[in-house]
């Protein structure tokens, strides 16, 4: 028997819907040659074998319980490279909607009297607990971006993500701006890389890939109001995916426009 020299890869899941893992499985169907380049040693969603010897860890889901933190730290200890996979791991995801309320209240709504037994806290991106080398954004992730990121890591490079807004890709697709149809859209502050898939199908961008590094939120809010979105409507729309990022940058934003 020959010992494989391929890099060993493991997938882990925390608080999330597992849709990003499904996208990985989907990517294996179109990019079966991926298995010639790496050995997958742990992937609960797809296989029952389980090995704790791995170099690259892909982590899906947000960290939302005190008890998750030790497991995250153990993964960090073992892996040379940790990748946050998808919006929950990258941004806290939809789960972070609850961060606007007290954790006690949230536990009571969800679990009733038994709420006290759970150790859930705010939904956090895994970067809040452990160091990550890179992330693959999106809800769910884009399969090509996943494949390209893995190739980059195999070449000992960090994946290169766009740091410009979704609008750029939306225009390449020659879409009419959704604002012109009275549909508020977060495309102009959200990181591109998705090919503007939502606006191209007539649905607004909800910001699942996170903010670009220099988002002009103040002016976008003004644009939204100008196009008929009520005051506060922008906040409501942006909380779906950007709760954690917005809360983090709250202090900075007050000084800005």
């Amino acid at each position: 028997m020959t010992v494989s020299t391929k890099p060993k890869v493991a997938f882990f899941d925390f608080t999330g819907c597992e849709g990003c893992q499904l996208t990985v499985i989907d990517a294996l169907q179109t990019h079966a040659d991926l298995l010639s380049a790496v050995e997958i040693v742990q992937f609960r969603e797809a296989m029952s074998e389980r090995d704790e010897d791995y170099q690259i860890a892909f982590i899906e889901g947000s960290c939302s319980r005190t008890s998750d933190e030790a497991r995250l730290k153990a993964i960090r200890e073992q892996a040379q490279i940790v990748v946050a996979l998808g919006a929950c791991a990258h941004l806290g995801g939809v789960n972070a909607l609850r961060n606007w309320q007290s954790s006690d209240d949230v536990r009571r709504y969800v679990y009733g009297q038994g709420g006290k037994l759970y150790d859930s806290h705010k939904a956090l991106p895994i970067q809040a607990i452990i160091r990550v080398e890179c992330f693959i954004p999106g809800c769910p992730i884009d399969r090509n971006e996943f494949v390209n990121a893995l190739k980059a890591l195999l070449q000992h490079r960090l994946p290169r993500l766009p740091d410009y807004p979704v609008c750029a890709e939306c225009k390449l697709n020659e879409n009419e701006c959704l604002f012109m149809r009275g549909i508020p859209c977060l495309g102009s502050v959200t990181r591109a890389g998705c090919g503007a898939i939502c606006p191209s199908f007539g649905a607004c961008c909800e910001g699942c890939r996170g903010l670009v590094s220099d988002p002009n939120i103040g002016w976008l809010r003004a644009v939204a109001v100008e196009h008929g979105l009520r005051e506060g409507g922008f906040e409501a729309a942006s909380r779906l995916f950007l709760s954690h990022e917005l809360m983090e940058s709250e202090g900075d934003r007050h000084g800005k426009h």
Partner: protein
Amino acid sequence: MNLQVLPKGALVEWIELLSARYRVIGPKRKQEVVQQQPAGDTQQPPREQYIFGELQGAHELELSYPSTILPPKKVFLPQKEELFSFKDNGHQVDLQLDERRTVIFGIHTCDLHAVLLLDQAFSQGAADQHYMARRANTTLVSIECLEPCSENAFCKDMGTWIMPETFDLHLTDLGHEYALEIGSAKGSELLQNLTNIRTATETDYWRFNQVISAKWARFPYRLEADLSELPSLLAISYRSQVWEELGQQCLGCGTCTAVCPTCYCFDVVDEVNFDLTSGKRFRVWDSCQFGQFASVAGGHDFRNSRAARLRHRFYHKFKYQSDSFGLAGCVGCGRCAEACLVNIKPIDVINKLHRKRVAVSGKRQEVMG
């Protein structure tokens, strides 16, 4: 001038004849995808939008289109194009050139002027093989604009509302017929086997002149500065407060550069296969409005604010390109003004800078007088 006349009804036959020999591209309606919305929603239906796309027949051709979302540059410089594939760690390279014979129908004169500028940019120095291959195999059928297409266009100011010296074939709408001017051998080739075409008579020339003359009054001047003053107006406005104000407003989305018919900046990216030794190299559109555009190894960014990036775009359009090619980098098509969500419009910006200068020199004269 050799003027030919073609009845409008003959377009169907013409496009059919051309389609047998060429890939025929022209302005056509864009179909937007509309999501089902809950009752009571205040959404508006999509507006009529036009794009340059491959024509399945004359019925798709919309020659009276106002403007298209993207300019025809996308035919010569696709949003993402394969440059070559490589094997054996790059020791074997297989060049990919697109030499499909193509006709682009219905290009407005502003866009034609823009293509001539792209030609300069891609042919100077080491000519760009990929661009040149597409360009050499493409024939342009331009059409005279008889009305301004939008309140954002300022083609009369930029001198692009009329034909450039170089063209292939140019149409002018005479009502029931088109007048055809032949500008090149490539253009004349398109008329092969066309049965309904005839040489213009004295009366046709008279009508043609009438139509062209009537244009003058219909197109307004919108810039308060003269075209020849623009490079120097910018040269003395580098530290103007205007750029800071616009930088606050700008979303940095790069829409303006995508829709610009003369913006050609690109990035080059490799996509490797899982063997990590073979793959493909692509060229993709880039934008000077993006934060990563002017950053270099070591992390320094030469234009690290939206204000600096926006100023650079205006300088490139109205000064740098005039300096290097003797052609204004802006053709006044108005697409960027139309597409900008925060209403940054070149006419307003130039007029604002100009008014500031006029105000300053007025004050100075008072002092000196």
